[in-house]
């Protein structure tokens, strides 16, 4: 198992931040983050801490900026021309905008809304990240692939068809494959962008159970439209509305005694 203790001890000086040591229970911290698509501002002064080893859910109506925020955390917004963030995002006290993007994305993995296995075999899908990052020799590769598939609770279903096309799997299996693929490079944080929106309830339940079991392994941030999912799976929940973070707290507080009227309206289904 990969442990993050050495990462947690990383000092904050490199980010030029405060003199106090980086708290171990915070994995990522966004400070007054704005985000622009060209001239349009999509996020307004977001302040949010992602707690270490927990699942943080981001909820809110379509277009509220939750996915935009998620895509800042591994700098995936860079694929969109003219997208521009402002403010500070730290990963273990390090400024993610000055980190090498390849290195950042290895530490902060991502699972997408639609399962997106590569047009390769199951084995090669998992091995892909290891190969491009030069991790693992030929002999250790098979072992690493098995480990990742086991972690994603997919091993038993695919162990006899590792060299078959990943497209032969069902949607839910494909999504677990994508989770395994992300886990293979040993990320410290896993970002999930509505990972269950294309799946049926049974496949969704499997993924939620899987996420729960992955908490020892990495910190997770999940964007979801499904409020029951946030309530079931997440330890912390942030509610976004029109590009602002309205409220962020422990999940049970958000769902039982929200502080803001907008949050209450949203979770009780009065809008959105």
């Amino acid at each position, binding site marked *: 198992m990969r442990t993050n203790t050495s990462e947690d001890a990383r000092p904050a000086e490199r980010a030029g931040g405060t003199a106090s040591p980086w708290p171990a229970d915070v994995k990522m911290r966004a400070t007054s983050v704005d985000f622009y698509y060209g001239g349009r501002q999509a996020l307004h002064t977001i302040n949010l801490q992602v707690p270490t080893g927990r699942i943080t859910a981001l909820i809110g109506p379509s277009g509220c900026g939750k996915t935009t925020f998620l895509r800042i955390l591994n700098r995936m917004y860079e694929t969109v021309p003219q997208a521009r963030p402002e403010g500070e995002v730290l990963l273990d006290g390090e400024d993610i905008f000055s980190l090498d993007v*390849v290195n950042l994305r290895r530490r902060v993995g991502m699972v997408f809304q639609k399962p997106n296995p590569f047009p390769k075999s199951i084995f090669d899908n998992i091995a892909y990240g290891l190969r491009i990052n030069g991790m693992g020799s030929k002999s250790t590769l098979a072992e690493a692939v098995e480990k990742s598939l086991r972690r994603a609770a997919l091993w038993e279903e695919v162990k006899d068809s590792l060299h078959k096309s990943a497209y032969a799997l069902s949607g839910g299996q494909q999504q677990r494959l994508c989770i395994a693929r992300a886990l293979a490079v040993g990320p410290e944080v896993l970002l999930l962008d509505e990972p269950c929106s294309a799946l049926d309830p049974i496949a969704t339940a499997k993924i939620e159970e899987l996420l729960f079991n992955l908490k020892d392994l990495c910190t997770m941030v999940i964007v979801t439209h499904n409020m029951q999912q946030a309530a079931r799976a997440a330890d912390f929940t942030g509610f976004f509305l029109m590009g602002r973070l309205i409220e962020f707290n422990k999940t049970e507080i958000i769902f039982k005694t929200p502080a803001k009227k907008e949050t209450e309206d949203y979770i009780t289904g009065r809008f959105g």
Partner: protein
Amino acid sequence: MSLRIRWRKLVNVVMLSLTGVCALLTVSVLFVILGYLLWYGSKSLDWAFFTRLPAPVGEAGGGMANAIVGSGKLLLLASLIGIPFGLLAGVYLAEFGGKTFSFLVRYTTDLLNGVPSIVTGIFAYTVIVIPMKHFSTLAGGLALGVMMIPIAVRTTEESLRAVPRVLREGALALGASKWKTVATVVMPAAMRGIVTGIMLTLARVAGETAPLLFTALGNRFWSPGWNQPIASLPVMIYEYALSAYDDWHRQAWAAGLVLLALVLITNVGARLVVSRGISFRRA
């Protein structure tokens, strides 16, 4: 009222039949050509056609072995020039290009595609034949290679663009660089379309005659190396079809059939290889 409806029905029937007739004509043109080629070509096809050199003027028999090999060599050379340029420029346009420069490249490519093949021939003539003072395989291959580039560029670009964004992001999210993403995920996923496009251009230039007339020229004998005039099937067809001899006319038909068959075989072969590659066994 009823007149109006009858009129509308009539227009409908007339237009439907018109589109049907045009579609049928399009298909039948191809089948008439194929039929002619098969009918006349197969009659004069024999083993000697593939194994022997052209017979001296006035003598019956002989074959076009040198032209078959010559076409192969010219196309090989053309591929060596056209495929890398076309492929990489297409990748640039689809994956890396900025706005203004991409527009320029795309526009130029389309213009290049519209350049008459004989002009491309003159270009190769000026660039290679005149300085070297003789016709050569090299000059012919260059002319054909230049002709391959535009379609190779555009089909590569379009095939790459058809690859869903989520696949790219999947690779990027694992820490792959842009180029690595393109080379290991996007291009394999688009390979079928890319190969189809390249095959199309190859088939097109395989039949080109005009740019070869004053670059590769033609040759009634073997052409060793890359530096001498060389025979090719299209030029042979041109020459033989215009000749006064019945025997040559028959051989021109045979050459046409062989040319078509070779293009077809290459095409099917390449597709087989590609479809095996996409069976997801290896990256």
